[in-house]
């Protein structure tokens, strides 16, 4: 491979990696806020994303709703669904026997249930294309070609993340979430409604996953299996340290760029193993991730 080609590949890899990475970052943020506040690793994160894409597709293509209305409706439905799941199912699981394994199994169950529901509607069996609202076409930055859709995805993702960081850091709700994440009992003592905050976190997270889905859906074929992208989001979260929000974002971009580089330099078929290798390497050499700080020992 000549130097010029390598240089072109690197530029293209970074450009495409930033776009896919922004979506991984959104999904990773959704996973991390849930883990931070409610101590649940949400294995259904991928299915939230998949369900949101199908919901939006159904409303736009089948019910012919205007794009913006469909987006808002999708986000609202996702919020309600995830909130109900937390309030009805997870609260009960924690009450019955609040072991970490049991909560994870419940989210695994949800992921499977959602996949089955989407498939049984008949939508999930044939691959579909999501309509794009952005005009086709592309321009070049350096040597890399970037489409208008790519720019929109990246821009919207960054905007959503900025908005969320503002909520998380500067509003009362966000402060309550952070407090619950730090110490549940102390948070309760100062009058925070634990149940409400935990439900809100699930609502937020599923809304973010939904936005990620709508952003990236025009770029790929929709199938019932598209939720498997959650592996990438987990990899991103682990690179970042699993409890750090900026870590999740940077992890998302790292994973996105790595994925594209692997695709360009090695083989597109090697992409699927890349997250596994990354997860393993990070967990072996730097288990606290890039931004996790010192490992926290949990008191019994």
């Amino acid at each position: 491979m000549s130097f010029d080609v390598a240089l072109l590949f690197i530029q293209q890899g970074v450009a495409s990696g930033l776009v896919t990475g922004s979506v991984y970052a959104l999904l990773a943020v959704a996973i991390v806020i849930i883990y931070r506040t409610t101590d649940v690793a949400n294995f259904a994160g991928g299915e939230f994303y998949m369900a949101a894409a199908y919901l939006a597709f159904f409303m736009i293509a089948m019910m012919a709703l205007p794009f913006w209305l469909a987006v808002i409706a999708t986000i609202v439905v996702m919020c309600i669904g995830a909130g109900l799941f937390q309030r009805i199912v997870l609260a009960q699981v924690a009450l019955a026997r609040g072991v970490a394994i049991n909560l994870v199994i419940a989210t695994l169950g949800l992921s499977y249930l959602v996949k089955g529901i989407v498939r049984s509607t008949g939508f999930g069996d044939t691959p579909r294309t999501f309509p794009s609202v952005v005009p086709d076409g592309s321009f070049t930055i350096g040597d890399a070609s970037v489409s208008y859709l790519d720019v929109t995805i990246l821009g919207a993702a960054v905007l959503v993340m900025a908005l969320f960081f503002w909520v998380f850091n500067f509003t009362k709700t966000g402060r309550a979430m952070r407090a619950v994440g730090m110490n549940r009992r102390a948070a309760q003592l100062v009058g925070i409604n634990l149940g409400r905050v935990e439900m809100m976190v699930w609502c937020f997270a599923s809304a973010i996953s939904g936005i990620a889905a709508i952003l990236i859906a025009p770029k790929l074929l929709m199938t019932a299996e598209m939720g498997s992208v959650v592996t990438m989001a987990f990899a991103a979260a682990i690179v970042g340290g699993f409890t750090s929000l900026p870590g999740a974002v940077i992890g998302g971009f790292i994973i996105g760029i790595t994925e594209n580089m692997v695709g360009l330099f090695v083989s597109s078929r090697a992409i699927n193993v890349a997250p596994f290798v990354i997860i393993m390497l990070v967990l072996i050499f730097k288990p606290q991730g890039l931004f996790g700080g010192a490992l926290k020992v949990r008191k019994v």
Partner: protein
Amino acid sequence: MVEAISAKASRLISPRGAMLVALGLIALIAGAIGLTSFATGYVIYIVNLVMVAIVLALGLHIVIGECGQFSLAHAAFYGIGIYTAGLVTNLLGAPFWLSLLAGGLVAGLIGFFIGFLSLRMRDIYLALSTFAFGEAMQWLFLNWTPVTGGPNGLNIKPATLFGFQFLTDRAAFPLVLSVTLVILALVAVLHVSTLGRSLRAVRESEIAAASVGINVTRMKLTAFTLSAFVAGLAGGLYTTFSTFIHPDSLGFQTTIIILTTVVVGGMGSLIGAVGGAMVFGLLSELLRQVPSYQEMIYGGILILFMMYAPRGMFSFVGRR
């Protein structure tokens, strides 16, 4: 060692219990004879499959039930067992017991390696690393075409023993049954042995276990390795009656089915794992034609059991 175990076993099983076990075994053998003479080939095929499901559940039981460690990679270990055993049979023409053991050993070895890598992880990190390993292995099964046949699948020659070929499900049935019973007995021995007790101590509290001199690290590694070994044996067992394997059946959904089996049986209960495997081995065969219902039912069952019966179905009948 052996005397100690048998002494413990005799204390655990009362004369009445021993009689019940003996009666159960007689009923089982009688049922097996009846089955091979009356049932159709398809029914026997399903019974064989259920027995593979039992061995698989026993494998996951060791790591999740006895030791309290999460593993989402059992479909991968099962697949490693199937491909290893299948290739040993195909290329070497080895007798079934050799390919069975090869499947178990290779899976156990890889399980040891993954367990070693995952030693510092617990809870979700362990779940995530094993989940990623499972995904990577399925990718390998699908893409390592020269060895696994890739998307075309792999045809496996019939199993042989002393020159006799097990061509049909009916012929393989006694073999599958006896191997399953042997593995079940071994896992039961593990359960009552000192090792089993140490594993359960780690499950209940790592700190307490360490404080009474149990090597927590070694216990976790042992559980992981044994569990992968048994999953590999299940794969080898599968090749004794099935002649074809496709990577599609080794993905995450298989892991979910095994997990449901163990969860519904009750994590930590040996009888539960076996009972759960009987129910779900049958159910997944019945639902094979309607994958979406299968997904909904398994997902729903997992959620409901975690909500209302986290100790499994046998908790209702008064286990412990």
